[in-house]
């Protein structure tokens, strides 16, 4: 009798431990649909994340939202109410992340987005105090481009971007940045990811005779306008955004994308960074981890954003574990506070310093200027 009671008590205790002690991380990424080229490396990166933090087991639940808002919201609700996650990583794209904010705030679950727009975390209000994001704000990247342009004497620029949230966000931010630097935007055109031809847009841009052209697209589709520009004999400078930064872009772009200038996260040229660069080591860590598992040259900067979300999460979890048990509202609250308090966390894309007013936390160290020469990325300065 006594034995059995002890047994039951032990079993119960163990059950409680195994239920409450595990940390549950919910992930929703766009592994299919139009944003699949971003979502797949992010999904892969989740596999590289630590299975133990502070001695506690971490469970990852990864869902695909097919680049669709409704699915992202359903996934989030499922993660929160069914899996009782402690933190949500995702989603890949801006609209999905924006739609998830309400749920995160309502359930008081911290959320770390991997999407670009600053609208996701700014301004930090009652709802967005639960939301963080890892990719560099577009304005920071846009300013870097504008700076480079004015340094090389570009007076007028034309813009061609995706007809989606990414292109839209970039257009807004770049117009601001160009205004600051006194550069005139003389043409704005849009195109679709799956377009087979951008001849019309390119002819129009070229006829405006800009000194430089900025292409705002992500992944390989960003090569299409540049190839068309080459075809039409455009000789001015061509800029790309950090969205192109994976090796597939080089493969598809070939010699037509030589000499392109773009801002990017440091991880893109991690090995070329000077030894004393603050991000070199942490960026290389990620690149090596990813390429060991998925093959040489397979790494992309999109996965880096997921990695950084993991970095922030690890930091915060080890802090929060000191204050509360995983699976409780108290733990989630502590996790949020810890995220806001993250200081000097080195990730693949930069050093994160969160504050109550800045839920992105990247600074100038989070971007480098890169050009393409001889079919590879080349670091040309900060």
């Amino acid at each position, binding site marked *: 009798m006594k034995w059995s009671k002890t047994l039951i008590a032990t079993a119960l205790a163990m059950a409680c431990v195994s239920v409450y002690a595990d940390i549950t991380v919910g992930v929703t990424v766009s592994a*299919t649909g139009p944003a699949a080229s971003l979502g797949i490396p992010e999904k892969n990166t989740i596999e590289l994340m630590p299975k133990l933090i502070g001695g506690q087991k971490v469970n990852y639940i*990864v869902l695909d939202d097919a680049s669709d*808002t409704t699915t992202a919201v*359903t996934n989030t609700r499922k993660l929160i*109410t069914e899996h009782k996650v402690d933190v949500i990583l995702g989603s890949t794209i801006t609209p999905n992340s924006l739609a998830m904010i*309400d749920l995160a705030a309502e359930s008081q679950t911290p959320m770390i987005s991997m999407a670009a727009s600053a609208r996701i975390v700014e301004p930090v209000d009652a709802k967005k105090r639960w939301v963080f994001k890892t990719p560099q704000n577009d304005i920071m990247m846009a300013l870097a481009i504008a700076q480079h342009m004015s340094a090389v004497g570009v007076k007028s620029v034309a813009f061609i971007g995706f*007809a989606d949230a990414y292109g839209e966000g970039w257009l807004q931010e770049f117009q601001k940045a160009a205004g600051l630097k006194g550069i005139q935007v003389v043409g704005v055109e849009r195109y679709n990811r799956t377009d087979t031809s951008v001849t019309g847009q390119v002819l129009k841009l070229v006829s405006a005779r800009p000194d430089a052209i900025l292409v705002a697209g992500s992944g390989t589709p960003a090569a299409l306008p540049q190839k068309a520009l080459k075809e039409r004999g455009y000789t001015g400078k061509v800029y790309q955004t950090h969205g192109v930064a994976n090796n597939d872009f080089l493969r598809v772009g070939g010699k037509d994308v030589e000499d392109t200038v773009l801002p990017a996260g440091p991880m893109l040229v991690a090995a070329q960074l000077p030894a004393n660069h603050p991000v070199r080591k942490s960026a290389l860590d990620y690149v090596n981890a990813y390429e060991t598992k998925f093959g040489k040259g397979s790494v992309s900067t999109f996965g880096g954003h997921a990695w950084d979300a993991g970095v922030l999460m690890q930091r915060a979890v080890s802090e929060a574990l000191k204050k509360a048990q995983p699976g409780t509202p108290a733990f989630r609250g502590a996790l949020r506070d810890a995220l806001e308090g993250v200081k000097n966390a080195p990730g693949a894309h930069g050093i994160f310093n969160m504050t109550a007013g800045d839920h992105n936390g990247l600074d100038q160290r989070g971007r480098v200027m890169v050009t393409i020469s001889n079919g590879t990325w080349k670091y040309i300065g900060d």
Partner: protein
Amino acid sequence: MSARWAVRLFAVLLIAGYLALPDFHVSLASNIGLYALVALGLVMMTGVAGMTSFGQAAFVGLGAYATAWLGTAGAQALGLTALHPALPWLGLLLGCFITAAVAGVLGAVTLRLSGHFLPLGTIAWGLSLYFLFGNLEMLGGHTGMSGVPALRIGPWTIESPRAMGGLIWVLVMALIWALTNLLDSRPGRAIRALKSGRIMAESMGVDTTHARLKVFVLAALLAALSGWLYAHLQRFINPTPFSLTIGIEYLFMAVVGGAGHLWGAVLGAALITVMKQQLQDVLPQLLGVSGSFEGVVFGLLMLLVLQRYAEGVWPTIQRLTARARPAPQKRAPQSVQENTKEKMQATTPVNTSGNTSGNTSGNTSGNTSGNTSGNTSGNTPVNTPDHVSPVILKKFLIARTLAAPGTIVLEAQGITKRFGGLVANQDIHLAVRAGEIHALIGPNGAGKSTFFNLVSGVDEPSAGTVRLAAQAMHQQPARAFAALGLCRTFQHVRLLRERSVLENVALGAHLRGEAGWLRAMLRLDRNEEAAIMAEAQFQIHRCGLTAWTHTDAGALPLGAQRIVEIARALAAAPSVLLLDEPAAGLRHQEKRQLADLLKQLRAEGLAILVVEHDMEFVMNLADRVSVLDFGQMIAQGTPKEIQQHPAVLQAYLGGVA
């Protein structure tokens, strides 16, 4: 415990269950409800009316964007911020208005064309609306609009997902009720008739283009309603939920559930939503790798369902449960083929009433009061079912005045029809008089059916004039012929095979009722409906089909199906009756009964034009015979004259003579 109490208890349990449901299931239930609303529209379109749309998601988008815009930027732009609590409701009005306008235009453009142009058209404009949402800055572009206000009903704010879910499901249930009512009514029968051939529906007086347009707009409005709810549930919208992919998924829901059944929409929405959730959880475990196989597996399952259960899951479930329970009565005549003869003999009242009452009333009152059904049913009250008195019949059904016997009611004046180089009918003159049976005979391919189509408005003559009730019918559709009292049967039987004989016959009375959609949905049409049903039952009885009243028309032997077509035509209270080979497939005894029925109708003052191959039948029945050969009228006259006409003998016996 009575059935009503069982229903109430069930409802209470349902509500209690809903309140206890875990949060995630509540949001799944809300999604299912939202999808079901759209799928209901698609069931009305696809399963009931035989149209298809891949573009419903775009209508959902119109509903959602209208209210989202009005609730945020629009309110400021229009200076409506003071109306804040009412904004969502204004948004609903705006959404419905825009949707109805867009659907109306699109429908007007595509609905006259044959079936597959509509779905292809919907793919195209579904895409263009999607790109439009994404590129309009005032709608938040591709990034989306946040801050959509919460819904308010009086003092209550409906903000929590659970409350919204409740509202969604109340609406779903209310709409299913209204649509069930609609389908069980005069306009409902007209909608169903659209699916199995528009020619038949037009011949019954249904304006098929108009009806299709209405169904299409209804489906679009249901989608817009779903979008409106979605916007206030999610409070954030961007274009992706309104893309073509989702539009395709809506159609899958309707088809998987069972496109012919309103509950199929709910079942389909539930199945697909739950299945996708399950696939998301199960597949990675099953396959061990985390690929993106959901789409593939989902598509394969769809293929399987379409190949195996083409009607959807709901009818399959119905069949299974029906097998478990004792067979319902309406399926009783299983071996119809065998006992056709007995049934027709046993139940036919034609002989008696036809000879006594029909003759007298037809001759005396035919030219004055005229309502065929009114007259005859008055004489045979015992046979009128459902305790509906003739007074009610008269009061609720539109009657028709028959012309005096001998008057020409239908006339072909020199009509010619060419198909390319082929002349199917050449310069044909023919007159059909009230109170007369006129037979049209001729060898196969002589152009009889072409002629029939020309004088019933199904086709347009290349030259010449058709006159019906003294009016020239140039460019008039078949329904205009029906409105003037012409009703016909078809050589190839055109019945709604999956509906009961009663419903098929009731469709014939379409033009005699007036009940519209709204009256039908709210069940305010019951008196008229009872009258139509009584009329239909009377005609079924008169044609000796009583035993099959509730049988699916498709289950009847072909000969009996022809008789159903006659009953359907009679339910229209016609003044001209066109019968295309009515005796084909009938046995000897049945032919005699048919002849008796036609004689009775003649006595009542109807003009009857009949195409028939059975010479004995024709010669014993007809007052006048016309003979077509190679598209030309070669002889006209009494049966006697025709039997001795040299040209006819030549045509029928060929060069032998």
